[in-house]
């Protein structure tokens, strides 16, 4: 029943030219059900060329509708029906199969539009119109158990543009095709009514709407899918399976079945298949017939799901197709070169939405080329934000900087200031500012410090506060050292949570030396006091290299079982280890916390980071979960994420309790490859989000010398040697360019008015080749 459609999937690269046949060839080529437009001419006799031209131009347009256009060359002596009469040569004939439908006088076919309109208008009659719901019901009933039906709502504006869509249906005469109009519906929609299988007259036929745009190709696709079997039974290696869905690039859901549950699985599969009709195929894979399912299918990675709920499958597939649809829509819009005007940079857009708000800059000194150096003498510490007033990240940081100024209001010895490098490039060049924004702290003595932490209010504020203390701080007595480790010294910092590092070197006094024994290390060593847990830890210093010591302190400052936040994740990412992370809505349970801590502490050097995430503190964790699971699972959930190698995500079985032992044995299974990942992180590169304007291509139409440079430039060097003539030629060429540019400009405006008609036709062509 559906085979017929394949005829239309022609190759777009074909050059559309008017085929010329002799009458015999022509009549023998006619296929039942296919329409063709022919005109007859005697060899050597030429019809008025305008007609010939127009009919040639219509070849492509009509072929879109599956109608062939043929020029038939009559032999001279031929006096048959179409060739014989002289009159006949002034006419074109429309055949369906070998039945003549209509003859047209050539003067009625004066241009492409009239040719197409005339031809299609005739075929159009084959579409039945339905005006009321009752009529639809009647037809439906009459078809039940016999045939399926394609049915379309069409917005009834009655313009030519919309009618072309109606014409599309004319191509499917084998189906009972119906049209209906509904003025409130903004766009046409097509339904497939599954009446063939409907046995119950009281029940309406099942309907599947087509969700793509109404183009011929999409309709073909849709009908092809409708014609495919609902559920494909597979008893072979899934890699060898090829269904219509896969051929069309749609997902194929394999439902694994056991012998025992076959009947129930079959019902489930059918249920899922109905839900996914037109979006994905469903195959029932009899597991007992084949061994393990691994790897990829037709080079496409397979996503495994443990089926808990059919809805999960459906949502997954639907979301995916929705996503793809969005992408497709975007592509379409790009062709109009309009949508890439939309700002897709969140920082730029946020700043530009905030641009009208006046920032409270009273606390911040605005410096200039003249005042920059004198300001340095005004305070013990001068904090300078170097920024560019047109740059979005700068302006975003400026907003945080204003908040910092609020926090630090009244702090002695610190002066916050800003330099706009767009106004004062000299200062910025001199201070070696190569990036916007840059924050530097200048000490009165002339030393300067560049801030390279998180560009956030709290982080910056605490950096400024900590920078007030001279570094390294020299401690004279043991009491001072103790105070320092307790966080009481220096007094400026006593109210701030911070970690302290005390270096104990061999030069230190003997008592301090002794103290370092208290911490079970011998000098040189570091004593590290973390703000959170009050504990002091001694770390021996084996390396003397500055970089190594910095690295060591950084590493030691990391928590054993940290709560991951947006701010601290990068510190743990640096370890380049997999994360064993528990997502929790609110604080983590005591039991879990204890077990996890045990796990983390037990193996200090282990190859993964044990951590947790509080969705209340870090709501973006919801986004992470959504990416890992189709739907958010019940919380807390323990997940193993291999961020750096392979990107596999595993979920700790929810039916097991979170204990050190369980986790460890689960991890063993992971290592052994016995667990199936719930998802794999995309390996995709970050490609340009949208295309750029292709000015090179645009220029080629009006500035041809840019493309044909070789030949042109040669000619021009000759011209330059003859100045008089070259000037003339140059002006002539410029005039031509001027004209072509005017034409190009003219061409643009109607092009834009015709959005959705002409460009759409072009767009459709493009899609053919994708199949």
């Amino acid at each position, binding site marked *: 029943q559906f085979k017929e459609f394949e005829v239309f999937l022609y190759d777009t690269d074909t050059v559309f030219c008017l085929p010329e046949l002799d009458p015999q060839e022509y009549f023998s080529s006619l296929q039942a059900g296919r329409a063709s437009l022919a005109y007859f001419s005697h060899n050597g006799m030429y019809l008025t060329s305008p007609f010939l031209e127009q009919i040639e131009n219509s070849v492509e347009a009509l072929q879109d509708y599956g109608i062939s256009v043929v020029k038939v060359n009559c032999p001279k002596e031929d006096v048959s029906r179409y060739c014989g009469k002289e009159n006949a040569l002034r006419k074109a004939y429309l055949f369906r199969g070998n039945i003549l439908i209509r003859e047209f006088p050539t003067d009625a076919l004066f241009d492409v539009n009239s040719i197409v*309109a005339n031809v299609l208008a005739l075929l*159009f009659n084959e579409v039945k*119109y339905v005006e009321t*719901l009752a009529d639809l019901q009647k037809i439906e009933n009459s078809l039940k158990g016999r045939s399926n039906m394609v049915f379309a709502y069409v917005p009834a504006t009655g313009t030519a543009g919309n*009618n072309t869509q109606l014409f599309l249906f004319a191509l499917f005469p084998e189906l009972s095709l119906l049209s209906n*109009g*509904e003025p409130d*519906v903004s766009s046409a*929609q097509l*339904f497939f009514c599954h009446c063939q299988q409907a046995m119950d007259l009281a029940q*309406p036929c099942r309907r599947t*709407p087509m969700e793509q745009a109404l183009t011929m190709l999409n309709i073909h696709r849709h009908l092809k899918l409708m014609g495919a079997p609902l559920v494909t039974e597979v008893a072979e290696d899934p890699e060898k399976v090829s269904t219509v869905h896969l051929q069309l690039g749609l997902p194929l859901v394999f439902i694994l079945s056991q012998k025992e549950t076959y009947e129930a699985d079959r019902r489930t599969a059918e249920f899922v298949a109905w839900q996914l009709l037109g979006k994905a195929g469903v195959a029932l894979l009899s597991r007992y017939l084949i061994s393990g399912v691994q790897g990829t299918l037709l080079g496409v990675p397979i996503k495994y799901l443990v089926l808990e709920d059919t809805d999960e499958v459906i*949502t997954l597939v639907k979301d995916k197709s*929705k996503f793809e649809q969005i992408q497709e829509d975007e592509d379409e819009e790009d062709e109009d070169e309009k949508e890439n*005007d939309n700002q897709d*940079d*969140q*920082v730029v857009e946020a*700043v530009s*939405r*905030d641009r009208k708000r006046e920032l409270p800059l009273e606390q911040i000194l605005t410096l*200039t080329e003249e005042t920059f150096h004198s300001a340095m003498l005004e305070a013990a510490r001068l904090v300078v934000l170097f920024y560019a007033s047109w740059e979005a*990240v700068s302006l*975003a*940081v400026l907003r945080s900087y204003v908040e910092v100024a609020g926090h630090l209001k009244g702090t002695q010895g610190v002066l916050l200031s800003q330099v706009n490098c767009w*106004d004062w*490039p000299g200062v910025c060049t001199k201070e070696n500012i*190569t*990036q*916007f924004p840059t924050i530097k702290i200048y000490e009165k003595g002339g030393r300067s410090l560049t801030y*390279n932490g*998180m*560009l*956030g209010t709290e982080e910056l504020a605490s950096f400024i506060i900590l920078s007030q203390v001279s570094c390294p701080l020299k401690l004279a007595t043991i009491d001072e050292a103790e105070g320092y480790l307790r966080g009481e010294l220096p007094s400026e910092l006593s109210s701030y949570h911070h970690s302290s590092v005390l270096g104990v070197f061999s030069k230190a006094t003997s008592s301090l030396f002794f103290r370092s024994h208290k911490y079970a290390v011998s000098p040189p060593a570091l004593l590290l006091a973390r703000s959170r847990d009050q504990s002091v830890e001694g770390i021996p210093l084996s390396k003397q290299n500055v970089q190594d010591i910095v690295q060591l302190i950084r590493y030691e400052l990391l928590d054993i079982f940290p709560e991951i936040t*947006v*701010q601290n*994740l*990068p510190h743990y990412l640096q370890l380049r280890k997999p994360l064993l992370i528990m997502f929790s809505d609110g604080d983590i349970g005591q039991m879990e916390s204890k077990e996890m801590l045990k796990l983390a502490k037990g193996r200090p050097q282990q190859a993964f980071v044990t951590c947790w995430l509080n969705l209340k503190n870090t*709501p*973006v*964790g*919801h986004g992470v979960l959504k990416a890992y699971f189709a739907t958010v699972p019940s919380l807390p959930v323990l997940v193993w994420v291999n961020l750096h190698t392979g*990107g596999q995500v595993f979920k700790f079985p929810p039916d097991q309790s979170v204990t050190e032992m369980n986790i460890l044995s689960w991890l063993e299974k992971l290592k052994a490859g016995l667990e199936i990942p719930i998802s794999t*992180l995309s*390996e995709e590169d*970050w490609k*340009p989000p949208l295309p*750029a*304007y292709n*000015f*090179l291509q645009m220029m080629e139409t009006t500035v041809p*010398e*840019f493309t044909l*440079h*070789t030949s*042109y*430039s040669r000619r021009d*060097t000759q011209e*330059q040697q003859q100045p008089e003539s070259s000037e003339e030629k140059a002006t002539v060429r*410029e005039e031509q360019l001027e004209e072509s540019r005017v034409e190009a400009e003219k061409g643009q405006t109607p092009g834009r008015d015709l959005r959705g008609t002409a460009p759409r036709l072009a767009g459709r062509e493009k899609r053919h080749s994708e199949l």
Partner: protein
Amino acid sequence: MARAVWGTLLRLTLCTGAVCTTAFLYHDYCVIGAGPSGLQIAYFLQQAGRDYVVFERSHAPGSFFTLYPRHRKLISINKQYTGKSNSEFNLRHDWNSLLSHDHRLLFRHYSHDFFPDADTMVRYLEDFASLLKLQVQYNTAIVHVTLDRDQQAWNGHYFILMDQNRQNYKCSSLLVATGTWVPNVVNFPGSEYVEGYETVSINPEDFAGQTVLILGRGNSAFETAENILGVTNFIHMVSRSRVRLSWATHYVGDLRAINNGLLDTYQLKSLDGLLEGDLEDLAIVKDKKGKLHITLRFYLENRNTSAGIDSITLPQDELDNFATRAPYDRVIRCLGWKFDFSIYNRSLRLMPGKGNKKKYPQIKPSYESRGTRGLFVLGTASHSVDFRKSAGGFIHGFRYTTRAVHHLLENRHHSVPWPSTVYPITQLTNSIIKRVNEASGLYQMFSVLADIILLRENATAFEYLEEYPVGVLAELEAQTGRKAPSGLFVIIMEYGRNFSGADKDVFYYNRAVGEAQHAWQSNFLHPVIYYYKCLPTEQEMRLRPPNWSLPRPDAIHHIVEDFLTDWTAPNAHILPLRRFLENCLGTDLRNFFAESCFLFAFTRQKLPPFCQQGYVRMQGLVGSKRLQRHAVDAGLLEDYTGADLTGDRLLGSPEGSQDQLLRDHAMPVPPLQHLVNAKDEL
């Protein structure tokens, strides 16, 4: 140190032929002429600590300006206010200052006039030379330059310069900054009656009640006319070519509006007029009363020279409405100047240019002489590179080309590569936006000097080179000492292709483009960015289309022209530029808040460059709550704070509800009369 020794060794006695000179004074660099460009290169040489000397025949710098322009008004603008404090940007509208680190040496400190007096320029140049302690040897006129072949020399030869006292100087590199100072003259019968611009009276009273013919159609001709317009009977101006108006050609050397009073009086029929004709065909005869009559050389050739004026045929004898039939009291020649070729020995092969560039010596786009390696031409004399196109013949242009030449020399002779800055790729858009908005060299020397961005491997970083002469792009690696392994961007400023020209209507409606997607049709000066996957070859440069400064790129971007020349608009300027750069590099150059980077870090194996170079290095952009709110409102950031754990956000979306409607069987369906009608119409 080795060089110093070498220098003293060269103080030897050398005899060539009959002339025996005592000693050479050696310098690495010899500059001829202490005008603006000579002082400019001296400044750069001095800053770099090079061994150089400037020879000046006069007792003070800028001697050209002590005489010219005769009417003392410079036509280079000296804009006091721009509303901006950016010193680089302000140089775009300061056409008189030379480049230096000294803020005192800005021309606005010397004059408040928009068109300053030439004496101010002389004073400025004196200050420039003395404040910066430049090595200028005054009262030294170089009268002859020859070559001394030597394999050891930088360029295979030394330049031997001789001054008016037969003192010889030996130089490794010769920098010619002599300008164009030899007045152009034409010889025709009666040209002895013609007064030259260089000597003509500038006192309008001397012209009272006189009828004047001016030969030439440049700024000096119009300046001369402007001065006497009010007191003459009338002025006629004759020249071969049509008048070229600066505001139509966008070339500052064409007739500037400040001097064009005569165009007014001509077009309003106030007796003055313009004529086109070849001066070579002209002849002038003086009658007994001392009046000068215009005739044609052709008539004079056919007559007996001994006979008096009466026997000479005048055009009006045959054509009684001949345009210049009225006799003139004075004829003034204002035909401009040319380069002094006379001092260079033939072996230097310093040849005049072709066609309308014959007043300039032939040089390469690197400003090096075509005939002699190591001889660079600077300043006005180097204008053949961009004659009638850009500003290379004027202070505000050649101060930058001179700097470029200095960079080339530093690389060639001292292995100091072209200055550059390396940035992370996230700063790509920013670095371009910064430069196109403030850079003065790009702006003045449009289509001649270009900023070059050399991409590092994997496009994670790039190197930025400023104001490189685009004509030698193919030689970039050799000329700059920098490598271009992974493609490059060339940033240049351009006027629209067919916008400028003597006969163009530059005020037509819709002359300016406003929409970014039509930016390539921009007419006024705007930034253009060329992308090449590989450095263009010399052949590609040679075969580039005429009037194109660069060969066909792999991609091109125009930043749409801007009325304020302020290219910082986020959507019209920066966004399309970013898209262009992204598509050239095949990456995503958007900025992201830390929260987005966090999400990407957890859900993708790769991160966009902004997160990679910021967030991951613990320099994420946290962003204020308010900004995050804005981003959420814009749909560019998801708000998870109130996240619904059911995850079903599809309900209530417009498409969803429409589907619902369509499936509803009880939906009322109105009749489709109009559709049926439409069908009938077909």
